[in-house]
Structures are given as structure tokens and as C-alpha cells.
């Protein structure tokens, strides 16, 4: 009986814990604010897309635009730790990968590792990829002649584990 009384008191306490005078947060308020947050996200994303286009147009005009993308073959067990890229004997990119980035690459994501400007004509691209394969360290190097035309030039650098493959896009 006494135990029932105690339980009763505890339940009663829980039920009567209304916060008289305290500021309340209603479901409607949460929902309303959430919708406003969604709206501002939409606006900021629109600004971001506009800024992306402006940046591309201003900094990388199509006649000189060149970009290198890194991908990892999904059937390879190669885990890149770092990549170093030289273009016409100049270092243009040196990137150290985080765990999340390696996972993203292994799932099929493609990383834009460098965007720049070059003249039309042939350019020497050198890539050095350092990573792990089958538990041991592995370093791959490869060179590629990039033929820059009048339009934007995109080169995919594909790390296959057995080497580096290049593909013009």
C-alpha cells in the first residue's frame, strides 16, 4: 500500500511539474523556426551556386581552364594517403587525405584536386600517389601529356592500385 502511495506520489510529481511562469517552447515555434532555417539555407545555397559560376568565369576562363580530378578504382584495395601533382615541372597540388576523404573516394566520389589556368598546347603532368595496399606502403608515379585545347580541359587521375591511369574529359 505504502509502495503504491510512493509510486503515486512520484507519478503525481512528474505530472504536476508544469513550469508556471517559465518560457515555453511549443511544437509550432520549433516547426516555424525550422522552416525559416530551411529558407535561409535555400537562399545561401543559391548565393553559393552563383558564386561558383562567377568564380569559374572570373578565375578560370574556358580557354585557359584546366582541372585535375582524383578517383580511386572501386575494385582496388588502394588507400591513398597523399598525392602530389606537378604540371610542367611546377608543383600545383599536394594533398593529404583524411580518413573520411579516403572513404568518399573509395565509394566512388571524385575529388577536384586542382583548378588552374594554362595556355593551349601540350603540358607535362606528373603524378605521385602515396598510399597503402594490402597493409604495406605503396608509391605510384606516372606522367601524362595533357593537350590543352581551346575549351576547358579536365583530366581524371585514376588510382587503380596497380598504377595510375589518366583520362581526358
Amino acid at each position, binding site marked *: 500500500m505504502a509502495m503504491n502511495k510512493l509510486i503515486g506520489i512520484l507519478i503525481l510529481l512528474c505530472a504536476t511539474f508544469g513550469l508556471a511562469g*517559465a*518560457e515555453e517552447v511549443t511544437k509550432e515555434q520549433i516547426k516555424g523556426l525550422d522552416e525559416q532555417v530551411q529558407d535561409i539555407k*535555400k537562399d545561401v545555397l543559391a*548565393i*553559393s551556386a552563383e*558564386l561558383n559560376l562567377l*568564380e569559374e568565369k572570373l578565375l578560370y576562363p574556358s*580557354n585557359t581552364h584546366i582541372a585535375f580530378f582524383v578517383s580511386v578504382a572501386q575494385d582496388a584495395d588502394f588507400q591513398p594517403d597523399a598525392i602530389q601533382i606537378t604540371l610542367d615541372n611546377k608543383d600545383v597540388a599536394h594533398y593529404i587525405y583524411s580518413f573520411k576523404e579516403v572513404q*568518399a573516394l573509395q565509394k566512388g566520389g571524385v575529388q577536384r584536386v586542382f583548378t588552374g589556368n594554362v595556355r593551349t598546347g601540350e603540358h607535362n603532368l606528373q603524378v605521385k600517389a602515396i598510399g597503402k595496399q594490402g597493409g604495406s606502403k605503396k608509391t605510384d608515379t606516372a606522367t601524362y601529356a595533357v593537350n590543352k585545347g581551346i575549351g576547358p580541359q579536365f583530366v581524371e587521375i585514376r588510382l587503380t592500385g596497380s598504377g595510375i591511369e589518366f583520362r581526358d574529359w
Partner: protein
Amino acid sequence: MSTPYMVMRFRTLIILCLIGVTPVFAAEQNDAALKDLYFGEALFYAYQEDYFSAISRLDTELAQYYGLDEPNLNSLYYHIDHAEFSVGDFELFYRMHNRAGRAIKAVIEGNVEETVRNEAIYRLAKIYYQKQQPLNALETIEKLQGQVPEKIRYEEPFLRAQIYIETGRFTDAINLLNKIENSPGMEGFAGYNLGVALFQSGKEQEGILQLDKVGQVKASDDKVQAMRDKANLVLGFRLLEAEQPDLAKQYLDRVRLTGPFSNKALLGSGWAAAAAGKFDRALVPWSILAKRNVTNKAVQEVMLGVPYAYGKLDVYGKAAILYGQALESFSAEIARLDASIKSIREGKFLAAVIREELKKDKHWLVHLRELPETPETYYLLEMMASHDFQESLKNYFDLAELKKKLQKWQDYLTSFEEIISIRAAYYEPLLPDIEVQFRALDSKMKLRIEQRDKLDKRLKKMLITPRPDFLTTVDERLMLQQLEAMERSLPEGADDTTNERTRQRVARLKGVITWNVNTEYQDRFTEANKHLRELDGDVDELKETYAAFVRTRQAATQSYKGYDKQIKQLRIKIRHAVDQVTQLMSRQGHMIEVMAVNELELRRRRLEEYQVKARFAMAESYDRATKAQQELVIENAK
């Protein structure tokens, strides 16, 4: 209770809240055949859960794609359905449900494959369900027809059953859940929902049997184990309410001692024993629970439960001491709560939410508790597992990130303006001279091209009307001119032998040239055509150089002209967005603080009530202990 243990429990709670929203994107199926690098780049960000960058990248790509005259020639064409779908996915994960809904609706209404449409319908229904709009969810899911993609083979009927439960169609839910109860990935979850559906449809006994079955599922997976615990806990409390304490205790004792429901189960197990009058048995789970983290509601409740049980066992002295200890603990916790409330009001909690080190961790909500100088988080454990509070915290975090981005972009615009002014300063003095030279070269080039066209026309005419004279060489022409000059220099009407011989020789030589020109005509014509083609090659090269020059000249002009308006507009938009974000951050922050303080004050009030109860109970226990001792003294004196 140790911190790692608490973190593990909290993580499990959070994971349970997030079940079913693990990032799996529509595009994943198609990765092997990736044909657009920028789409791949969007996925790269999405896989890292950087949804803002993923959406921004994909939005830019889609805007460019739809702006093309012939989008079918663009590499995104191959992924367009998946890109549209993915943008909806990313928006969903970025908690932009309204826009995600619109994007997914567009996929449903678009010209897509049946499986893609069905997946879109499933996702839209899921959005409605998560946003607590079951009728909209039902209307949407019922549009699903034909083949369902393999990856949602079981998820779709699971969601459908959840919607049926919410809309009161329990029999339909039961039928569906029966079919998928043991399907891969559904173990525990489908069975638990089946139990809930049975209870709600009034089939109490079948519901009990169902939850009993779920409560015995063998699993190594954390989430399934948690569901098993939940089934046992729910069943235990249901039986406790139905005044079947012995049976209730059996289920409550099945709950793991380390799971997210263990505290409630230990508390319930003690109450079940106490309800059956077995206070000594109640002390077993309660004593375990009493040693755990004092901030937990169940632990605080059991601090009254343990002395209560001792009192019932007539161990009043111990009960009085334990009530005293409980009072001390409650006072310390009230002081702690006061400090936490003060700290939250000083803005320290919000400052912790946006700390840099949290950004790298997807379990940042969990680790928020581990950060130094954040005492306010001790009591917010359960609140942090609630959907509304989590969403509010994430919104605040996202707003802080947006603000940082916008401020960075303002600097970008300043840099852009600097670049433009440097370019203008470089090109403007050069361009007028270049323009003059260009015009001169341009007219020369036009002249040469006109000459080439004239030659081309003449050669084409000669195909119909041969004109050997057009194909004489320069030497031949000079020789003919010389011979004609010689002929003219001979005196008219003279008839001497020397002049006659000279005339004949000139005629013979002219004849030789005419002979050569006529007999070699075909060869010369072929040769002339060959030279024209060679010239065409040179002209093409010239045109290419010309076009490249025009482009370069245009690019030079475009590199600094025509940006002012766009940059000005962007600056206004960014400034406006910064103001809005700042305002929303302040409102969202205030809301979080109010929610947190309300929760802490609720806990504080509860502790104050416990204090009152403990004081009375302690006094009563001392009285009874004294009385018992006096009775013992009297007894002994007899």
C-alpha cells in the same frame, strides 16, 4: 557510472533515433559508370556528409545543364535522373525537407524508370512520415506501383506498415509486418512494430507473445540488441501496470545491464519485486542502479527506493542513513543544476555547440558531453536524444556554419574586385595598340582570303572551260613577254633574211611554250588544285590563330568588364543573408537555451520534491529506528 559507458549508452540512444537515415544515396548504384566528373565531385562531398558543398556543386551543375541549348551533349545527361534524385537526397540529409520534397516530387512527375519513380515515392512518403504527416505519407505510398528497387525491398513495406499504424490501419500493418519480420535488416524492428500494432488493434495477448518473441531475438548487432531490450522493457512495464509483477520482472530482468534501457529496466525490476512484496529482491537491481551516474532520472528515483525497501525490511537505521545520503546527493545535484542553468544563460552551452573540434565528428552530439567547461550538458542527456532538441542543435550548428561561409564570401568578393582592378590596370593601356595592330592584320587577312577564293573560283571554271594560258609559269610568261617584245622590235615590212630567220625563231619559241603549256595542262591543273588545297591548310591554320586571338582579346576584355553589377548584387544578397542568419541564430540559440533551462529546471523541481520526500522519510525512519530501539531496550529489560 564511467564516462565511456555513458557515452556508449548515449550513442546507442542517438543511433536508435537515427535508424533508417544512414546516408545511402540514389546515385550509389550507378557509380561504376560515372560519366560526369562534377557529379562525382558532389558525391565526394556527400559521402563525407558535407551536404552543403554537395548541394551547391550539384545545383551549379544542374543550372549549367539546363542552360545549355543541347543538354543531351553534356556529360551530366547520363546522370540527370540520378542527379535530380541525389539533390533531393542531399537536401533531405541537410534537413531541407521542404525543398527535398519538391525535388523528389519533380522526379516522380518526370520521365523516369519505374524503379526510380518508386524509390522517389518511397522517399517522399518517408519525409512526410518523419515530419509527422501520416495522411500525406499514406496518400504518397499508395501511389507506388510495379517493381520496387532491390535496396528498399524490405524498407518499403516496413515504412508502409509504420504509416498504417499511424493511420489506424492495424490489420494491414500486421499483415505486412508478418511478412517481413525475419527479413534481412528487419530483425527486431519489424517484430517490435508488429507487437505495437497488435496491442493497438486490441490483440493484447498476441501482442505480449510477439514482444516476448522479439525479446528473445539472438543478435550481435547493437541496434537489434537495443530493440530486444526495448521489447522486454515495454512488456515489463505493461505487465507491471496490469499488476502482474512476477511476470513483469522476468521481462525486465532480460534487459542487458549495459544497454540504453538498462537503468529503466533495473528500476522497473525493483518496483516489480517490491509490488510483489519482495523488498529484499528489489534491493538487488536497485543497489546496482544506485551506483550509476547520479544525474540519471532512474538513479535519482532509486535513491529513494533503496531506503524505502530497507524501511520495509524493518532496517530503519540503514534506511535513515540512506535517506540522509540521498538528501546530500540531491543538494549537490541541485547546486550543479543551478551552475548549469547559470552557465547556459551565460551562453556557454551554445558556444560549445559550435566548437571547431566537433565538426570533424559525426557523433558530435555525443562528444559535446565530453568537452571541458560544459557542465550544463550533464543533465541534457535524454533531451539530446529527443528529435526536436537534436534538430534545434543541428540547425544552430548549420546556421553558425552558414554565417562563417557568408563572411568568407564577403572577403572573396573583395578579392575578386581586386583581381578585376589589377586586370583592368594591366589590359586597358595595352588593348588600344593591340586593337590597331589587329585591325591591320585583319584587313590583310581578309585580302588574302579573297585572293584565295578568286583562285578557287577560276580553277572551278577551268574544269568546264580549259584555259591553259591561266596555267603558264612566271618564267614562261616572262619569256612570252620578251618574245613578243622582240617580235614588235622587228621592222615592219622588212624582208631581209636575218629578220625573217629571227621572226621564225621567235614563232618557234612561242610555239614551244604554247606546246608545253597545252600538253602539260592536265598536270599543271592537278598541281594547281593541289597547291590550292595546301593553301587551304594554311588558311585554316590562319583562321584558327585568328579565332584564338579573337578569343584571347575577348577573354582579356571579359576578365575585367561586366562584373560590377553582379558583384554588387551578390554583396547585397550576402549582407542580407548574414543579417538573417544572425537573427535566426539568435532566435534558435534562445530556443535551445530555453529548452535546456526548462529541462534543467524540471529536473531541479523534481529533486526539490525528492528532497521534501526524503526529509520526511528520513525523519520517519529515525523515529521508527528509535522506537524499535526503545522497544528492544524494554524487551531486554523485561
